[in-house]
């Protein structure tokens, strides 16, 4: 018909049929080089966590072995030697007071911190999104009930929840599972609030009405029309939940529902290291650095996903534009 596919005029050979949504998403994602780098970094961290026993075996250290000889007992237990006792045996130095190997503790710590914090984040996001959507779309009563329930959860301090759990949960429940559950239970409210407020704005839009007219139920409308638009704030916020969860994990160990010592975790290392940053800076900087790199790489990936989810970004990312001439004329155009 009158539809003009003008590609042929431009002299381009028969343009490839545009790919389906998912494929286009990947294309847009891959077009961002920083995302690839960040994803590799994150994958590396995951690898480190998974391969912790291998890596420590390579170094030849045990994460829980004390080395009293490597610290200066009279000076409060600062590691002997420079940079926190870095040596061929101890690649990243040793922990003050105990002399335990920092590298080994960091890579083992990655298991807990990444595993627990990451899975908990996923659960939190899931709960938060579900309840937030339900509150926004489920009508007045659902909103009231969910919002008030959220208030109750928000107002209950971690301390009280922790105490309650110690009392209720039998010892046979594996710790990591318990921790993940607790973190998930205490931390979903932010997501739910954000989702609710954004969904309230979105639901008055015409395209949502159109979907409703199409005969979809509320759930389907939420999933098909709202979720993609909610992805941006949810991903942005969700990434930030990871470091928050690492801290909650550390706090839980105070309450006795955390990872059992001597198993290391970044959160606990950070907590322990806090006073040491003047006398043994590496002790603090290493876990902080690892956590930061994790969060940074997740942020970049999240940001990339967010961008890639937006089809309007495709042109900005110049997906499918290969001609060099284009790039040149664009440069000209922008100055």
């Amino acid at each position: 018909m009158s539809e003009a596919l003008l590609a042929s005029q431009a002299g381009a050979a028969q343009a490839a049929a545009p790919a389906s949504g998912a494929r286009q998403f990947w294309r847009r994602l891959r077009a961002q080089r920083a995302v690839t780098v960040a994803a590799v970094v994150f994958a590396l961290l995951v690898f480190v966590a998974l391969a912790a026993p291998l890596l420590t075996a390579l170094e030849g250290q045990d994460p829980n072995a004390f080395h009293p000889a490597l610290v200066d007992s009279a000076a409060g237990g600062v590691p002997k030697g420079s940079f926190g006792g870095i040596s061929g045996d101890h690649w990243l130095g040793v922990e003050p007071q105990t002399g335990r190997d920092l590298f080994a503790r960091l890579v083992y710590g990655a298991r807990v911190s990444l595993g627990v914090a990451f899975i908990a984040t996923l659960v939190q996001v899931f709960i938060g999104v579900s309840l937030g959507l339900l509150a926004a779309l489920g009508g007045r009563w659902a909103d009231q009930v969910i919002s008030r329930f959220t208030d109750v959860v928000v107002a209950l301090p971690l301390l009280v929840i922790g105490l309650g759990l110690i009392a209720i949960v039998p010892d046979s429940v594996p710790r990591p599972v318990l921790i993940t559950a607790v973190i998930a239970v205490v931390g979903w409210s932010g997501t739910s609030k954000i989702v609710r407020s954004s969904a309230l704005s979105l639901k008055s839009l015409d395209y949502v009405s159109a979907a409703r007219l199409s005969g979809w139920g509320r759930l389907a409308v939420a999933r098909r029309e709202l979720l993609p638009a909610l992805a941006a704030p949810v991903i942005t916020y969700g990434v930030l939940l990871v470091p928050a969860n690492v801290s909650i994990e550390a706090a839980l160990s105070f309450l006795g529902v955390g990872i059992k010592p001597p198993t290391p975790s970044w959160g606990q290392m950070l907590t322990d290291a806090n006073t040491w940053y003047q006398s043994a800076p590496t002790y603090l900087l290493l876990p902080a650095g690892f956590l930061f790199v994790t969060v940074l790489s997740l942020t970049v990936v999240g940001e990339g996903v967010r961008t890639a989810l937006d089809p309007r970004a495709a042109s900005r990312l110049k997906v499918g534009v290969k001609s060099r001439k284009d790039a040149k004329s664009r440069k000209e155009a922008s100055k």
Partner: protein
Amino acid sequence: MTEATTEALVEVIDLGISFGETRAVDGLSFSLAPGAALGVVGESGSGKSASAYALLGLHRSTGAVVDGTVRVAGTDVQRASDAELRRLRGGVAAMVFQDPLSSLDPYYAIGDQIAEVYRVHRGGSKRAARARAVEVLDRVGIPDAARKARSRPHEFSGGMRQRALIAMALACEPKLLIADEPTTALDVTVQAQILDLLHGLRQETGMGLLLVTHDVGVAAESVDDVLVMRQGRAVERGPVRDVLGAPKAAYTKELLSAVPRLDAAKPAASDAGEPLLEARDLRKVFGRGKSSFTAVDGVSLTVRRGETLGVVGESGSGKTTLGRMLVGLLDTTSGTIRRDGTAVQMVFQDPVASLNPRRSIGESVADPLRASGVRDEQRIRARVGELLERVGLDPDRYDRYPHEFSGGQRQRVGIARALAAEPQLIVCDEPVSALDVTTQAHVTELLAELQRELGLGLVFIAHDLAVVRQVSDRVAVMRRGRIVEEGAVDEVYGSPKDPYTRQLLAAVPTVDPVLAAVRRAARKELREQLREQADGAGRDEVAVA
């Protein structure tokens, strides 16, 4: 850099625009003298809007590739710095966008938005800028402008939003007005009023006008020269009289022959069947207390199987509100609607807002299919492809996103979606307002066909009286929330009873430029008359152009 060339306000040489692999505009050249008016007509998707954007450098850093030279008021748009461009935009050349309904910030009062833009270019106090905003709103015919200036966009009807955008453009008194389909959402009287206003401004201030439109009649009434575009190229160009009077290019001829005529009635309708929808005494009041506003006031109507009810009327008279109530998207304040399980669909007035920007248009069209339980991907693709094809879109663009489509194309996506589920009743809110006449004819034909085949009931809200006549069996004329006249289409058009209907019919633009000038004068007189009447009745809702 900027030379002191005074001759041409706009100078476009060999303009080309590509979106990725799509070449939307190719080798386009034209110029416009100060105070002159150029009309751009052509096929939907032919690159009219894209070219208009290029005049203000709006393609910058969007990924679109622009080549060729564009000069506006001496500024080389391609090379200008950001600051130079900002000075050009709004201050020298102002633009009215094609999709006015989504072009205003939903969070701010309309008056404030106009005032903000005004202050950027003209400075002055906030107060003065607000006063200016009220003034221009009043000039484009927004009733009770001072109060309405405080409304947010969602409280405006489609046509009111469009006029607000025109007001914004006029507020800065630009040297060049680029109006991309500025009257698509306006009823003919208001449209005439706006066109007259533009005409007046040209005469008074020497404003240049670049009018993009699909409505040949509108072009005939308002411009000196016409440029006919098709598939990204100019096919014909010349004085309006010549091009419309004696077209040379085959496409132009085709276009002109497709212009709907006021006297072309719908072929005898099949017998109207049982009622699909009955509405009694519908009322809709927005807001509460003092600020309440009755948008629909005691409307009753019936739509039967295989029948089309045309709804025409003043902009802001409650047509959209009524339509939304009919399909159940809006709660009624009072009144009853009986739908009896009729499957209803709606074509929304704002094609931008009605498409999810994050989903491909194919998916959007497939939505009702999937909702009705079709799971077979192949079948869905085939069916969607067929629908797209039938509304004149390339089925290969299934996986494209709304922002990659032109205004008219998006509108057609909306129609395709409404048709996908094979509903029994569709409420079409200005479904063809952005389509060039050939495409329009094609789409209305499609609707008629479906109506014949499936006994589809239609509520056809439109401001284009000719189109309404072409598609409707019965027509209802709305004004200020009420139906002032309803009846068989021939009766209403043939012997209108209500003065408002008569006024509407008189305002229909004509393709003949000479006749258009005569009509303009007549309208002016009528308006003056009407104003006297209104004054007498203590009302002053008719704005003065």
